[in-house]
């Protein structure tokens, strides 16, 4: 039986016309040639992005630049509010065991970002569960991806992805708002159990995108510091609570991979709250375990979210620990969040830190 018989209906290496291009040209008729202009603009605005620094610290650092963003709108669906934003396409880093720089692709037009928060407490819901972004024009889906759970210095936790638009026009973005499947505590307890879809329609113009702010830090890029959190009235940011606002008698356990770990015991539960240096964002996406000496606790911690604790990790203890007890927090592997510049070399190390309660 000949292995290449299927070639009968296949012409190797032969491409007359891209099926996708064909459909789009068909849809816009004579205006098809304009699509190329959009790509030129995209290239122009990404051309000014400074190169990644050669010598980056193994920790949080001030990035080469920060881009502003434009709000597309907010929608409340069920018990959650979704804010949708766009900016220039971004380079960012994905982390799956190891880190990879996701370069901007030529055809990508915008970085699309969704923030999701509880409509009642106005606090961010920072989970790894990825929403599907589905972008359509005139009823045809033109780009569809599951957005990455990400951390950026100016926006904190959000879901983001670079998207390919077809130049100026009206677009519809459907943002999936998935049910939450990790432990929820406090006012979040038992909520966010239904999946919704938030639908946004917006007018996009390359010229408006070019008006978005673009700030470079030529003198301070690479310093052990961070760009400031943005102040956007309509959107809460994913801050961890200040240490003193945690219940019980909270202590700073130490830092691993430049993430700072705060721990406390309240109502028989060990609570560990990791946060970024400088900006104090809560950090989901860690594999954590802990020991508490006197109670003999030695186990993994469960990832959880709450309105005041944000993303944190917890475990029920058998007994109330004593004052002076040693608590050890161990980072078992790399944090899996995707990172915007300035965070990509942090939160990757494993290791343990201890202190006394």
């Amino acid at each position, binding site marked *: *039986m000949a292995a290449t018989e*299927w070639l009968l*209906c296949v012409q190797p290496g032969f491409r007359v016309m891209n099926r996708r291009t064909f459909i789009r040209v068909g849809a816009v008729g004579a205006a098809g040639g304009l699509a190329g202009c959009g790509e030129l603009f995209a290239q122009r605005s990404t051309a000014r992005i400074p190169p990644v620094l050669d010598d980056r610290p193994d920790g949080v650092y001030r990035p080469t630049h920060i881009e502003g963003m434009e709000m597309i709108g907010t929608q409340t669906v069920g018990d959650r509010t979704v804010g949708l934003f766009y900016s220039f396409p971004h380079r960012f880093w994905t982390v799956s065991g*190891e880190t990879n720089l996701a370069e901007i692709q030529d055809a990508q037009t915008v970085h699309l970002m969704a923030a999701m928060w509880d409509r009642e407490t106005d606090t961010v819901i920072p989970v790894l569960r990825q929403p599907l972004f589905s972008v359509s024009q005139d009823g045809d889906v*033109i780009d569809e991806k599951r957005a990455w759970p990400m951390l950026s210095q100016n926006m904190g936790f959000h879901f983001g992805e670079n998207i390919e638009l077809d130049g100026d026009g009206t677009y519809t973005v459907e943002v999936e708002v998935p049910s939450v*499947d990790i432990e929820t505590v406090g006012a979040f307890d038992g909520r966010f159990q239904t999946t919704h879809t938030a639908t946004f329609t917006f007018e996009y113009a390359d010229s408006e995108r070019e008006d978005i702010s673009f700030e470079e830090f030529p003198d301070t890029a690479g310093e052990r510091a961070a760009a400031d959190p943005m102040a956007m009235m309509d959107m809460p940011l994913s801050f961890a609570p200040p240490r003193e606002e945690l219940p019980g008698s909270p202590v700073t356990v130490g830092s691993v991979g430049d993430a700072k770990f705060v721990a406390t015991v309240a109502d028989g539960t060990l609570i560990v709250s990791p946060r970024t240096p400088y900006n104090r964002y809560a950090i989901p996406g860690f594999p954590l375990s802990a020991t508490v000496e006197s109670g003999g606790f030695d186990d993994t*911690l469960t990832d959880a979210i709450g309105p005041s604790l944000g993303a944190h990790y917890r475990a029920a203890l058998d007994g109330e620990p004593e004052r002076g007890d040693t608590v050890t927090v161990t980072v078992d592997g790399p944090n899996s969040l995707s990172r915007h510049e300035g965070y990509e070399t942090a939160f990757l190390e494993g290791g343990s830190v201890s202190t006394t309660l």
Partner: protein
Amino acid sequence: MVERGISRRSFAKAAVAIGGASALAACLDRSDADPIPSGPDDLSTLPRRQHAWNESLPTDEHGNVRTPAHHLLLYQQYDETATTGSTPTDEERDTVEEAFRSLERAYEHSNDGLLFTVGYSRRYFDRYDDSLPGSVDLPRPEALASFEDPEPDEFDVVVHLASDRADALLEAEEALRGNRETVNDETMSAALADVLQVRERRTGFIGEGMPAERDDVDGVPDGAVPEDAPLYMGFKSGFRANQATEERVTIGEGPFEGGTTQHVSKIRLHLDQWYEQDSRSQRVSKMFCPAHAQQDRVEGVGANLGDASGASACPAHTTDARENGVVGHAQKNTAARENGSPIMLRRDFSSTDDDRAGLHFLALQHEIGDFVKTREAMNGSDANDASGSVGTRHNNGILQYMTVLRRGNYLLPPRDKRALPRPG
């Protein structure tokens, strides 16, 4: 599409996806095509199990069976307008059986000729007063994960046709639809169209180079799929050691002894991220396991792995979930074995249906419960529970890159009961 000026050659590449008389004509209109081998006069020489394909398929140097290149799923309804009480007559059974026999006489039972199976859904059997015997596990299709929302396929009948020859596949389809009186010089003594109404066709392909040739659809970046990859995701699958035997998936008792069950899901792929934002090493971690990536165990599309994915040499996936923050697809799959052996036989294939990169995941198993068990392992919820760095889909095998659109379950009766069977 052809009317819009795409060349005949480009059109022929998509012939199976497009279907119909013009697609067939584009395939047949070639002087250099080899003749298609015909089937036997004595049909009793054919295997009793409809799913007994492996003996008729070529193998590679490692003993991995190579499934045919082109695939077609024809979904059909029986008497859709009828209310309850309408069940097939013996005359209709004869018509259906004659249509299949005509195809068997026309084409060799092989990848060079034509292979096919016919399956029946729970919906089909529910028109009878009698229930299916306990030896057949055929639930209605449903969502198999908390994070998916597929449309259940509720067609009565699905015919799965496969061949390396697109012309054979298209000709057989036209004949089943009643649009051709002869196939490969054999007279069609009946057509399915006299009894069944085609409601949907789904198509696909598998084989070295075919996905790269068909990367001009949404959901996969142009030029990104390796030239020698058999599937869109860029790696080999269906390793001999990771496939159940045909014997293992066969129903061993009762009136459908010699049959099997089939699950078919329609899956949309989102591979821009896979190829543009994951590194090669991250892809190997997610498809196989982190150790395969760290130790460079996979060359190219993975042909060097031989006859096994090698995932049994990976650490436990819950360990990797904690220590590497990512778990592999093949690694999770090792949990879905019984006494060390796989319980599912994959015959899946890539697809350009809807002009989107997709996958028709077709799997055979002794009972649908075996598929459900395997699917549960692939959901990776234990990896998600074990580690705060592995999400429902994020870093959880390849779940991020797939959306399950539809699921369907079917009984493939033994060949002698393949024509509109009664439940008992």
